[in-house]
């Protein structure tokens, strides 16, 4: 097809004519460009208004100049003008310019958005597509805010053309990925799922599913049936992110997976590489799905065999991918053995591959497939490879060898040999962690000490040995040199002179270490004392410019002269065993590579296998927070924490039943760790609401997954925060979120503390607050500043959230936290612990007033009442504290029955104030309560009643 000479083409060609004629040199080109830019600028600035065609021409030229690599700082306005042209080409060039060159210049964005809005509303499919493309191409937050509501409408509108729908779906996907909080979910979910039968909606739904597994459960069976239809005709990539629960659906899925594997065996129909690329892409997706399910041993082994064939494929790409996928297969118990059969091929790859990235994958795979049975072979191969390995990956290989050697060491002399070999071969890449670790292990195991001493002694005899070797040697001989002193070849003077021969070539740190070795020698071998004192006394030590060395020399010299043998022996005793803890090497490898060395499959798997890709017995990382019994002191009340029923707060009647089972039914998410965390965060918070009378703060509550439904325990956690303001909102293996909040009138401020519990840095850490549905019209909350995108291992970051209550609300805003943990995206949605009672202002009133108001609120809808069984011991003081924590004032001498509690308060919102009266009547005999709430607004009565009833 001949290239039609478009407007753009003409413009660029004419420019090019000059361009190539006169551009003999770089300078000439720049001169020429500058001239052209000046010309265009003058045209734009000129008095005469440019017609659409010239405007388009010049904008196009600017774009061309930009693409040649020059900076453009004007013309944006003209491009925006083109958007509102009704000529297709002009509009098109305008959009192109915007999508290539726009930056978040807020003024322009508003104009652009306007133009886009018009085009979306134009009903002209071509224009609509252009506008959608532009939104998808720019995809900024501003655009998301402007159009997130429109696009779903276009997507599900009956009259949209297919091509428009298709663009709308992808556009929505893009916005969704960029800022998930902006895209309203819910009402159109079901309709989107049905689009699955439509051809092009797959990626949108896949992505949505990942975030929202519950809402999209229905699509699994649809997807599987579509898949089976497709598989039987052609092939198609598919990944169902949720595990189908239905056995029939599952069976069908397994069948599909088998079919794909079978097809992989068939000879290719066409010789083109491309054809096989597509086919293999499907195969790899299939395999990763099989690995993801990790429940079909048969399929896993077949997948492994298939990958095994690829290991020897002539396409480098396939070898690379096969090694990568196998890495994850190796961590499945079903296929670990099968993977091991390919060990020779992999070792061969490590030796012969020409591409370093492939070799790296091979090394990863060897690491992943290693277990006790093949550790010796793998470690020795890796050591051999290390001699010629690329510098870029040496350190990693060193770490891996060190870990494998330690983990699978049957006899520790092998371990010592391996590490010393490591130092010999790649001393520069042996980090402190590695040689510290070998010292720890030797110190802790007396069966290997003699051997270690002998081996380092021999290693030190090499004419040139690495400084790390001197360090290890110095330390080990200082501790255990006596074990080999009996041999005349390694008598104390020989040991000393061997070490001292290295002394002068070493760095300060090593020399300091050697000085300590020397003083230990004085204790171990009194016969060396004179020699060593001579060395210490030498001017080069005593007057060394380095303070540390000087100090050691002086102190050791004095120590050796003044202390008696007994004292020396005590001071210089052998080091005690090191406490066992997580190998620091492992921590380092994790820091380098993220958790595990293989490629992640998905969050869930990663969590489970992150610590231990080898399925071996690594030291478990120490727990981050240990709940102590004293943590209870911080608890709000003496009573056990209010148990939250699993039922949603709305299911009032259900609650009674749930509670009747007693507190034993409560899930184990006790408040203790939460409170322990709190105690770290701050001085003990005022325990009872009494101290906070002025502004009782609502409790924070963990909410659901960001886009997905709230995490299952969200409601339960929320209930814990109804009567308190501070505590741990959420905690899992990776992350801890703490909350501290205060409320006054209709305003609130919440401090969120995010703690990284791992030793690995979180990447792209971004918490956002989402107001589902029209919640935004009821309550506003905004994070005041962004937190840093990286959260270091063990670090805590803080964020402030300002809250304004506009009207009464029933559901809390959601907090969505996303980050990458070792390359794996994590996301989490929690309910913010903001409930309507947080905006309570207690009101004191006399009995007379109370009854008068009580009577005023006598409409049936204004009252909410609940009778329920006590879930905690019925203690008047505790109840009082809870009611105060809830936010109301407690009125004494109002109720004729002194056992009863009466409270009053006003809920402050921006739009209106809601007066609330409450009465709680405990019945100790029946272990029941009756709770009555009267407010001027019906939903508020019910909601408060539900919230409060769960607290007793």
């Amino acid at each position: 097809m001949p290239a039609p000479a478009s407007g753009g083409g003409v413009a660029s060609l004419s420019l090019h004519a000059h361009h190539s004629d006169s551009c003999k040199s770089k300078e000439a080109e720049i001169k020429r460009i500058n001239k052209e830019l000046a010309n265009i600028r003058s045209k734009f600035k000129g008095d005469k208004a440019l017609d659409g065609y010239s405007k388009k021409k010049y904008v196009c030229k600017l774009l061309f100049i930009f693409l040649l690599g020059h900076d453009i700082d004007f013309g944006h306005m003209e491009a925006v003008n083109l958007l509102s042209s009704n000529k297709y080409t002009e509009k098109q060039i305008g959009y192109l310019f915007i999508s290539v060159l726009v930056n978040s210049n807020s003024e322009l964005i508003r104009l652009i958005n306007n133009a886009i809005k018009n085009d979306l509303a134009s009903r002209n499919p071509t224009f609509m597509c252009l506008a959608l493309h532009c939104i998808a191409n720019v995809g900024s937050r501003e655009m998301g805010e402007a159009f997130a509501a429109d696009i779903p409408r276009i997507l599900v509108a009956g009259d949209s053309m297919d091509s428009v729908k298709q663009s709308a779906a992808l556009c929505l996907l893009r916005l969704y990925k960029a800022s998930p909080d902006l895209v309203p979910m819910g009402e159109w979910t079901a309709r989107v799922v049905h689009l699955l039968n439509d051809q092009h909606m797959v990626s949108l739904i896949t992505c949505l599913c990942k975030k929202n597994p519950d809402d999209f459960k229905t699509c699994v069976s649809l997807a599987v049936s579509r898949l089976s239809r497709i598989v039987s005709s052609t092939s198609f990539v598919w990944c169902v992110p949720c595990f189908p629960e239905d056995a029939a659906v599952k069976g069908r899925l397994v069948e599909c997976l088998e079919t794909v594997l079978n097809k992989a065996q068939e000879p290719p129909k066409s010789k083109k590489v491309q054809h096989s690329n597509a086919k293999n892409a499907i195969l790899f997706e299939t395999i990763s799905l099989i690995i993801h399910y990790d429940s079909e041993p048969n399929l896993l082994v077949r997948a492994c065999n298939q990958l095994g064939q690829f290991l020897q494929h002539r396409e480098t790409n396939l070898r690379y991918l096969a090694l990568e996928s196998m890495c994850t297969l190796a961590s499945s118990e079903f296929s670990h053995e099968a993977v091991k059969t390919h060990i020779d091929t992999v070792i061969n790859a490590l030796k012969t591959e020409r591409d370093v990235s492939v070799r790296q994958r091979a090394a990863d795979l060897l690491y992943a497939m290693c277990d006790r049975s093949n550790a010796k072979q793998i470690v020795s191969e890796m050591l051999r490879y290390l001699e010629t390995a690329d510098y870029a990956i040496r350190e990693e290989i060193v770490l891996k060898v060190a870990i494998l050697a330690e983990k699978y060491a049957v006899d520790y002399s092998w371990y010592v040999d391996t590490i010393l070999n490591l130092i010999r071969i790649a001393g520069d890449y042996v980090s402190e962690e590695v040689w510290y670790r070998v010292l720890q292990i030797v110190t802790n195991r007396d069966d290997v000490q003699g051997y270690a001493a002998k081996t380092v002694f021999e290693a030190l005899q090499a004419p040139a040995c690495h400084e790390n070797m001197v360090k290890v040697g110095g330390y080990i001989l200082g501790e255990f040199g006596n074990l080999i002193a009996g041999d005349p070849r390694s008598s104390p003077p020989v040991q000393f002179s061997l070490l001292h021969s290295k002394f002068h070539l070493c760095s300060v740190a090593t020399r300091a270490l050697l000085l300590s070795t020397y003083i230990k020698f004085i204790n171990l071998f009194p016969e060396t004392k004179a020699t060593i004192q001579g060395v210490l006394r030498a001017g080069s030590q005593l007057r060394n410019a380095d303070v540390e060395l000087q100090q050691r020399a002086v102190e050791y010299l004095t120590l050796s002269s003044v202390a008696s043998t007994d004292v020396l022996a005590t001071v210089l005793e052998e080091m005690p065993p090191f406490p066992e803890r997580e190998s620091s090497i492992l921590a380092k490898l994790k820091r380098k590579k993220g958790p595990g060395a293989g490629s992640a499959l998905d969050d869930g798997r990663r969590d489970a296998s992150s610590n231990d890709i080898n399925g071996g017995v690594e030291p478990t990382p120490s727990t981050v927070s240990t709940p102590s019994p004293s943590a209870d002191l911080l608890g709000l009340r003496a009573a056990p924490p209010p148990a939250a029923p699993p039922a949603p707060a709305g299911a009032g009647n259900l609650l009674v039943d749930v509670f009747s089972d007693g507190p034993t039914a409560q899930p184990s998410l006790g408040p203790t760790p939460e409170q322990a965390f709190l105690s770290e965060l701050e001085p003990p918070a005022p325990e009872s609401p009494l101290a906070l009378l002025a502004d009782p703060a609502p409790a924070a509550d963990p909410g659901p997954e960001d886009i997905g439904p709230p995490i299952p325990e969200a409601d339960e956690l929320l209930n814990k925060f109804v009567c308190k303001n501070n505590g741990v909102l959420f905690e899992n293996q990776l992350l801890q979120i703490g909350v501290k909040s205060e409320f006054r009138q209709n305003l609130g401020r919440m401090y969120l503390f995010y703690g990284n519990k791992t030793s690995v840095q979180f990447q792209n850490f971004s918490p956002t607050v989402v107001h589902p549905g029209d919640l935004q019209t009821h309550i506003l909350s905004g994070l005041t500043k962004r937190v840093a995108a990286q959260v270091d291992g063990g670090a805590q970051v803080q964020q402030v959230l300002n809250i304004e209550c506009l009207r009464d609300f029933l559901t809390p805003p959601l907090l969505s936290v996303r980050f990458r943990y070792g390359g794996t995206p994590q996301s989490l949605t929690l309910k913010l612990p903001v409930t309507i009672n947080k905006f309570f202002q207690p009101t004191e009133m006399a009995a007379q007033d109370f009854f008068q108001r009580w009577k005023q609120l006598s409409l049936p809808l204004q009252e909410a009442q609940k009778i329920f069984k006590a879930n905690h011991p019925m203690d008047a003081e505790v109840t009082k504290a809870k009611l105060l924590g809830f936010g109301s004032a407690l009125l004494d001498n109002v109720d004729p029955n002194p056992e009863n509690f009466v409270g009053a308060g006003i809920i402050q919102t921006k739009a209106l104030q809601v007066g609330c009266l409450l009465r709680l009547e405990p019945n100790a005999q029946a272990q029941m309560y009756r709770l009555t709430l009267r407010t001027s607004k019906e939903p508020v009565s019910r909601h408060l009643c539900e919230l409060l009833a769960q607290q007793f």
Partner: protein
Amino acid sequence: MQFMLLFSRQGKLRLQKWYVPLSDKEKKKITRELVQTVLARKPKMCSFLEWRDLKIVYKRYASLYFCCAIEDQDNELITLEIIHRYVELLDKYFGSVCELDIIFNFEKAYFILDEFLLGGEVQETSKKNVLKAIEQADLLQEKTETMYHSKSFIGCKKAY
């Protein structure tokens, strides 16, 4: 897909498409880094590399490198296939495409890419449909252009 870059063997950027909002500075930095990395690789090496927390998939066609950055869970092979599909589209449209076509008809190259990929996802898998859409756009353009020219012609006459 996070972005796609086309650059020549000399390291000159010929087309850039970003599907993530980044600052100009950041874009330039990434481009420089990737062009350097990819050009340094030898022909027989595999087409995938890990870069930051993304995967880079690249392929060389004649003097042009096509280079895509994809996310962790994306499939490398299908990305290669996408690149190839785009090259085929360009080839069909321009008739054995060369670097110069992309330089001087950059807007066409962009339009084709937009029809094919949207927001980093494949929009239209059928080559025929993509080309049809482009042809229609061209047709529309010619129509408006003729209209435009006749109008301006009339305008000229009046002025005369």
